[in-house]
């Protein structure tokens, strides 16, 4: 696996759009002061906070540009996480973590210097600034703009802040999900429930004078159910994730998540060997959009375009897909897992139409690639933590709804594969070759969904797939995922039901 390969991990579909609409009715939470976020529910006082001494940040930025350079930035982060895991009806562990630190970045021409420190002290920040300024050595000092607070719109609302939730409540949703999975059918032999939440606080200050701070809560709830009937076995998975308070479990119950996993586990016990070869594929609405995330989204991230090696290099304004194909990356969908308010460089998140009716409109940029390409900043500069430099990343990426009826799409497909959910996959963003593994798929025979088939791989090239989408449904839906590109990022992928003519399916029978 080479340096140009990006992958995404397995997440199922969820009706997040509905949640988002409901979520937007809630009054926007006032971003709390960072030190307040650090208080936890056991009455233990906060141990550390982000000390946002603005004069210090100005000095660090000036130090970073002391030997030249065009841009300097300080990024400070504090992340408090909790994870509780239940397996085989036992709580295997409870995990609590605090991770904090700061990174200093200098851009000189197209060169980047970066250094980070776990200790947020003036000495360590200055030292990081000096290391980062290595790329601009022997230059003359650049004068930064003094920082002042910038305004950014927020798309994340919170009713029940995670820091105020008792661990007993966390335990309760896990137990409920576990029980619901086991109660679904006696052939469900085991359930695994993984609960994770975090509050990530960010401070961003740069030599353009931007100063921002906010917090992003994140909930991630995964239920796996394993079925076994003596002769077949299937591990099913369902995930739920949002930037939200604990009220997420009021919108979608833990039982509902568990039953979806259990249903898949039971239905797939009847799976037979999948056929091999090129065939038509109907992809059900929701997380299936991850195919487009990989096959088209990654190649549209501007870093490889700036290197002149990306699959879509030089194709802006050109017709790259069918008329029915419109693709959007939108970091502003209310409370979605991929929503960011502003990116990790401070650029306001927005809706970016990447391909409209088949015509390529633009790429997703961060500060560096926007500068390299002479393009706008699109709000896609993201990083896993203070230990990473920002790079162009997707947020909530989807195929826009069309006008076809999902039932008609299936009925008009004589023979092929109906993909109900995908696990994950990967793409080579230079060549555009992608692959995916089906989690739940069925044969299509005479326009009807028939026998379930075992996890087959789907492969193809990004250019072919978007030229071969000939039906786009009106039922747009989303699912949450983890995207890996050297660093991980939380994303959603979405699509309506679509039909792709001629994908290569990796089954074990002819």
């Amino acid at each position, binding site marked *: 696996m*080479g*340096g*140009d390969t990006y992958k995404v991990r397995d997440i199922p579909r969820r009706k997040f759009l509905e949640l988002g609409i409901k979520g937007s009715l809630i009054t926007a939470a006032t971003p709390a002061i960072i030190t307040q976020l650090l208080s936890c529910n056991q009455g*233990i*006082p906060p*141990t550390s906070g982000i000390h946002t001494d603005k004069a210090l940040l100005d000095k660090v930025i000036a130090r970073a540009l002391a030997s030249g350079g065009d841009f300097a930035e300080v990024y400070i982060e504090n992340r408090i996480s909790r994870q509780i895991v239940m*397996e085989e009806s*036992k*709580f*295997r*562990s*409870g*995990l*609590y*973590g*605090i*991770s904090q*630190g700061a990174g200093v970045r200098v851009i000189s021409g*197209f060169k*980047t210097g*970066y*250094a*980070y420190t*776990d200790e947020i002290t003036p000495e360590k920040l200055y030292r990081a600034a000096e290391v980062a300024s290595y790329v601009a050595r022997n230059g003359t000092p650049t004068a930064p703009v003094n920082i002042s607070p910038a305004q950014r719109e927020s798309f994340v609302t919170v009713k029940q802040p995670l820091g105020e939730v008792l661990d*007993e409540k966390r335990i309760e949703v896990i137990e409920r999900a576990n029980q619901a999975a086991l109660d679904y059918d006696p052939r469900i*032999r*085991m359930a695994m429930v993984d609960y994770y939440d975090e509050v990530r606080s960010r401070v961003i200050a740069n030599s353009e004078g931007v100063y921002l701070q906010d917090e992003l809560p994140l909930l991630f709830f995964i239920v796996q159910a*394993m079925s076994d009937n003596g002769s*077949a076995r299937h*591990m099913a998975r369902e995930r739920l994730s949002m930037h939200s308070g604990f009220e997420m479990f009021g919108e979608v119950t833990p039982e509902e998540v568990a039953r979806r996993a259990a249903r898949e586990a039971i239905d797939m016990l009847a799976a037979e060997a*999948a056929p*091999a*070869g*090129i065939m038509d594929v109907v992809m059900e609405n929701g997380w299936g959009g991850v195919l487009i995330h990989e096959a088209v989204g990654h190649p549209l991230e501007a870093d*490889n375009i700036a*290197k002149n*090696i990306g*699959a879509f290099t030089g194709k802006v304004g050109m017709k790259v897909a069918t008329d029915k194909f419109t693709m959007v990356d939108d970091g502003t969908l209310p409370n979605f897992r991929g929503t960011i308010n502003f990116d990790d460089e401070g650029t306001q998140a927005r809706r970016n139409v990447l391909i409209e009716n088949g015509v390529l409109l633009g790429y997703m940029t961060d500060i560096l690639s926007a500068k390299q390409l002479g393009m706008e900043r699109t709000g896609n500069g993201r990083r896993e933590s203070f*230990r990473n*430099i920002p790079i162009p990343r997707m947020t909530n990426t989807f195929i826009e709804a069309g006008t076809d009826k999902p039932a008609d799409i299936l009925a008009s497909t004589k023979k092929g594969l109906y993909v109900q959910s995908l*696990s*994950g996959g990967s793409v*080579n963003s*230079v*060549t555009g*070759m992608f*692959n995916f*593994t089906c989690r739940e798929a069925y044969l299509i025979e005479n326009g009807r969904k028939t026998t379930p088939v*075992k*996890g087959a*791989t789907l*492969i*193809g*090239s990004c250019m072919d797939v978007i030229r071969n989408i000939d039906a786009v449904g009106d039922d747009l839906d989303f699912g949450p995922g983890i995207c890996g590109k050297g660093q991980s990022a939380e994303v959603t992928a979405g699509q309506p039901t679509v039909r792709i003519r001629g994908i*290569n*399916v*990796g*089954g*074990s029978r*002819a």
Partner: protein
Amino acid sequence: MDYIQLTRDLVEKAQKLGADAAEVYLRTSRNLSIQVRDYEMETIEEAASVGIGFRVMAGGRLGFSHCNDLSAKALEDTIMQAIHFAKITTPDEYNVLPGSTVFTQIEGLYDPAIISIPMDKKIQMAIDLEKLAMGVPGISLSSGASFREGDGEVFIANSNGLSGSYKTSSCSIGVGVVAEKGDQKNTGWESCTRRFFADLKSVEEIAAEAARKALELIDPVMIPTQRAAVIFDSNVAFSLLGGVISAINGDSVLQGASFLKNSMDQAFASPLLTIIDDGRMPRGLGSAPFDGEGVATQKRILVEKGVLKGFLHNSYTAKRAGAASTGNASRRGFTTLPGIGTHNLYVEAGQHTPEEIIKATRRGLWVKEVTGYGINPVNGNFSGGASGLWIENGEVRHPVKGVTIAGSAAEVLGAIDMMANNLDLNRSTASPTFRVAEMQIGGK
């Protein structure tokens, strides 16, 4: 700071604060990453960090917490969080910490020379590597070259009196290039990682390999859907075998989530398949004196001539299985509980040269790239995407891209009929090239 003493002190502290048993795991790390493109430095990243993970038990219940703030106050608060969690989870009789042992010293885990090599020399190495790869005819674009190094120390102590530490280093150099022909693009990436700087392959060798990979799949021809022999190149063998390793993970076996759960001492693969895990190989990238919870590492045969001989255990799964830990507790840094993983994992070399295998193949696919998840460890189903070279009558005919290969673990592993001798032990997972007599291939 004396981290050995600190970890011991913190174990005592946790016990005073209410833990029946406690483990403190501290890790320091230092990293440098240099990326160059178009013969100029593009990115340089450098950092040092330290963090601690606390595993505590109270009344048989487990709690874990971690932090990267080493102030006394932060450490105490973090321990309290772990103890708090240990009060609300479920008691589990298998929650145990290992006892104290004497660790064997393993040679060659740390190279003091790496850090003393001047930065400019490291940058120049990456630039030279990129130039050499770009100089190969047919190579037109670069995705960049990189030099990376890191070192770190692990300190562990627990309330059974266990205390240990070791120091490691590594460095790597790699390059990615693109070959173009008309509308076609193909990437080639090659890198080399070693414990010691002096052990790195020459930039000439790495550059040539990256360019060869980019060039060899230009002008592919689609093949029909069929059954034929599949030769797994040594570079991709573990994209198939990874699922076997997941299926012998003690946790999966005990949970019934493994296609090999009832296969101990049974033949499930071809007699040509022997798999060994060695935690003690000198200079091995996966070597360490002890595992992620302080159990001495071993060299173990997992699969012998196709017969399953061993599962992988940490202390928890070992107790549950009524076995001894196999020294396979793994740790992804200080932020997680010990899981289960391997050290230096390899397939024993066979008799044939890779060329002999090609020559002996009447009709088959020599797979150079595999995509997908490998064998599904739960049910043994395998399906992946593949690219490579098409073989007919013992000769390479043309490149192939975008086909699929699939089968069940039993079909595929049982049908390995030739094992090559080209084993490169300088990787933490290594296999020679091998041939599967027949598999389903999906094409046009």
